[in-house]
């Protein structure tokens, strides 16, 4: 049996506003790689062969797939971040004794979790069940149900385990919709669709390219007087997504006269989305490299430069900072790394044909809690069933939430039976923005308190209570961020330009660390992905067709085991009472933020060559 589904016979969607998800609705093609149809068959071999046999006739329309920051169609993002404009930056720049004026860029980067996106779908009457891999079953249901024209209660999404996401499973992409539409064509039957690794580059989101133009004016003592950042990111005509590279620059350093703007350029290319620390990861590439250049221009140690520009209040909101311990991270990290022994001159250390250098960069990520998560606790046969629709992407949710529940109920973890990843459980917010554990954990703690209040220390079987995470009122009164510092040592081969990261050290301030074992792994993973960002990862966009040419794991390089040598992770021993009852801020993303800049700064220190476009390639360090 084979069935071909196209825009001519697919279910008409109730809402076509979301261009990424409204597939198979008309003849238009937004980008190369977009779904134009599906072939259903009894076996994957037959289906794949059938898809090869389908002939598609297309008309070529004018299209544009070439990202450049000075494109005439560069514009403000819809609903994007407001511009920052304070003081008179041009006058301040003109008056500044030291000015650094440089442009930095980051390329398309692809999440590439090891588990490709896969969905199994079945319609039973008007009810749809999706077994899939998502960072949030409830948010995915909220997104998909109205488009399919059904009530949320008619859609069940089940996703107890997720083989990595890094943002690419944060919102449902077109593959989930395609499977739902395909299953609709064969009611009562189960349809399975696994996105190929190649197709993931077009379908499952990616980090768009950014161009970041910094102009910084400072006094000879390094005090920043003027700060200008004009950032542009690539986007898609099919659905808009800004990579807000300006986010960290809004709050990191002081400076009286400021202009910070984010723009984007929609192109006829695949739809970008979240990738680990969207905005921060890309934005801290430019910011932390320009700070390194400013330190050099002022003849200052880069850590001292940062200390001299430490703001008293948040330059963005004017609010006091909550537990801003950036300088503690930089200084304690420096001591552990052996920063003091560094000869600041570039190209000063040469060993056996290798130029060796060290670099530093700050890290930052906002701390926030999403309201609305609910947890249910029920005593069943002596075991506390804790239910919440949370997700575990390898982040350790199964472990950490069990631990939080056990602590809150004051019982052994063995007495907890955790249930997550199912819309039949109470509502949970997305595993994204490093908010997961803080949001879900708060709901679990609230449920535990209610349970003990309602049922006491000796509850009877079947006793049940629920709790909800509310907004954190402190977020209105304090600028809440986590901070960190990355230190890197790299070696660059003098004759070939080969670049290796010899060692890295990350020092973080993230509030209470709930589980040191899984936390260390999160930081290590972020730093490892940071090595990829610095040295390997770049989606090569073909300007003729708008697709990523190197769309597989042989040609889109991610770090392999041999790329990672010594990685060290430390954190400040602290709790953050303002962050909520857990005392913890999120840790899933800060590990990648700043890591690439530390490596690029180290490469400059090693060679004297400043590479401002990621990733760094060996050829960048060869004589021209």
């Amino acid at each position: 049996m084979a069935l071909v589904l196209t825009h001519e016979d697919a279910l008409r969607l109730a809402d076509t506003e979301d261009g990424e998800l409204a597939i198979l609705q008309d003849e238009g093609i937004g980008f190369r790689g977009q779904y134009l149809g599906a072939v259903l068959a009894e076996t994957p071999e037959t289906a794949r062969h059938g898809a090869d046999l389908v002939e598609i006739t297309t008309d070529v329309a004018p299209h544009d797939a070439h990202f450049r920051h000075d494109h005439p169609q560069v514009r403000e993002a819809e609903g994007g971040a407001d511009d920052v404009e304070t003081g008179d930056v041009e006058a301040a720049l003109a008056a500044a004794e030291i000015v650094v004026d440089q442009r930095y860029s980051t390329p398309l980067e692809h999440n590439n979790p090891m588990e490709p996106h896969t969905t199994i779908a079945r319609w039973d009457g008007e009810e749809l069940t999706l077994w899939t891999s998502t960072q949030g079953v409830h948010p995915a249901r909220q997104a998909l149900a109205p488009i399919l024209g059904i009530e949320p209660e008619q859609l069940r999404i089940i996703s107890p385990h997720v083989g990595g996401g890094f943002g690419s499973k944060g919102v449902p992409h077109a593959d989930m919709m395609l499977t739902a539409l395909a299953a609709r064509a064969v009611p009562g039957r189960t349809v399975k669709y696994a996105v190929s690794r190649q197709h993931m580059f077009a379908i499952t989101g990616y980090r768009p390219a950014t161009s970041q133009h910094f102009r910084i004016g400072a006094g000879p003592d390094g005090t920043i007087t003027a700060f200008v950042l004009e950032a542009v990111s690539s986007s898609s005509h099919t659905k808009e997504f800004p990579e807000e590279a300006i986010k960290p620059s809004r709050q990191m350093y002081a400076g009286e006269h400021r202009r910070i703007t984010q723009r984007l350029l929609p192109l006829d290319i695949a739809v970008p989305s979240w990738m680990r620390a969207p905005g921060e990861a890309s934005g801290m590439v430019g910011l932390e490299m320009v700070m390194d250049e400013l330190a050099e221009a002022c003849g200052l140690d880069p850590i001292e430069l940062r200390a001299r520009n430490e703001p008293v209040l948040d330059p963005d909101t004017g609010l006091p900072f909550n537990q801003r311990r950036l300088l503690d991270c930089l200084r304690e990290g420096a001591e552990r790394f052996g920063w003091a022994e560094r000869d600041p001159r570039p190209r000063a250390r040469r060993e056996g044909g290798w130029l060796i250098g060290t670099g530093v960069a700050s890290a930052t990520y906002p701390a926030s809690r999403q309201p609305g998560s609910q947890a249910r606790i029920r005593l069943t046969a002596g075991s506390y069933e804790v239910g919440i629709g949370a997700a575990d992407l390898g982040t350790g949710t199964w472990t950490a939430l069990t631990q939080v529940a056990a602590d809150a109920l004051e019982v052994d973890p063995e007495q907890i039976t955790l249930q997550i990843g199912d819309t039949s459980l109470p509502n949970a917010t997305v595993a994204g923005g490093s908010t997961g554990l803080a949001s879900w954990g708060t709901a679990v703690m609230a449920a535990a308190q209610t349970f003990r209040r309602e049922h006491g220390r000796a509850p009877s079987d079947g006793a049940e209570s629920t709790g909800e995470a509310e907004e954190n009122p402190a977020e209105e009164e304090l600028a809440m961020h986590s901070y960190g510092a990355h230190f890197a040592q790299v070696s660059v081969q003098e004759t070939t330009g080969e670049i290796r990261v010899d060692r890295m050290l990350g020092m973080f301030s993230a509030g209470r660390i709930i589980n040191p074992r899984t936390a260390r792994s999160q930081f290590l993973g972020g730093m490892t992905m940071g090595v990829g960002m610095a040295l390997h990862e770049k989606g090569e966009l073909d300007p003729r067709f708008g697709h990523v040419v190197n769309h597989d794991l042989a040609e889109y390089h991610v770090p392999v085991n041999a790329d990672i040598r010594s990685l060290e992770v430390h954190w400040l021993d602290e709790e953050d009472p303002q962050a909520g009852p857990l005392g913890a801020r999120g840790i899933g993303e800060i590990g990648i933020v700043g890591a690439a800049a530390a490596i690029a700064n180290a490469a400059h220190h090693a060679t004297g060559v400043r590479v401002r476009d990621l990733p760094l390639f060996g050829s960048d360090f060869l004589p021209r």
Partner: protein
Amino acid sequence: MGHPVHLVIDGQQHDLIVDARTTLLDALRDHLGNMSPKKGCDHGQCGACTVLVDGRRLNSCLLLAVSLDGAEVLTSEGLAPDGELSDLHQAFLEQDAFQCGYCTPGQICSAAGMLREAADGRPSVVTEDTDPGGPVELTEDEIRERMSGNLCRCGAYVNIVAAVQQAAAAQPGTGEAGR
């Protein structure tokens, strides 16, 4: 059109009728319900589907099931018969050598194959002596190099190296840590 093939999977005899295009990976997962090997790329680029075929570590997505008549295939699951963890499995747990776990069965099989290769004196690109004439000492560099065919996007490499070292130390020189 189906083709008969006889396979020994994790010690169990299986007679299958498979499409000539069916890979060993798809035969394991879709025909036999053995979900231990994972499909990360289907092109031999990520290592998530690594299994041991007649003792050698191979990407099961690059093998056609019909070409393997009579072969003995071991998956990570088969390395832990009746749920009894091997030294490698235990070491991966103790060293926290994974996050999402998707690449882990491939890492385990690859490590088992790699330990044997090192014990058999087969050099890698970082082995100083191209003819070691005996077991290769598994330094961190050796392990990193030999495990580089198995991608881990969660970035657990540091812990994977520690786990393989631990397993190697548990059974020095035998290369049998996987079994």
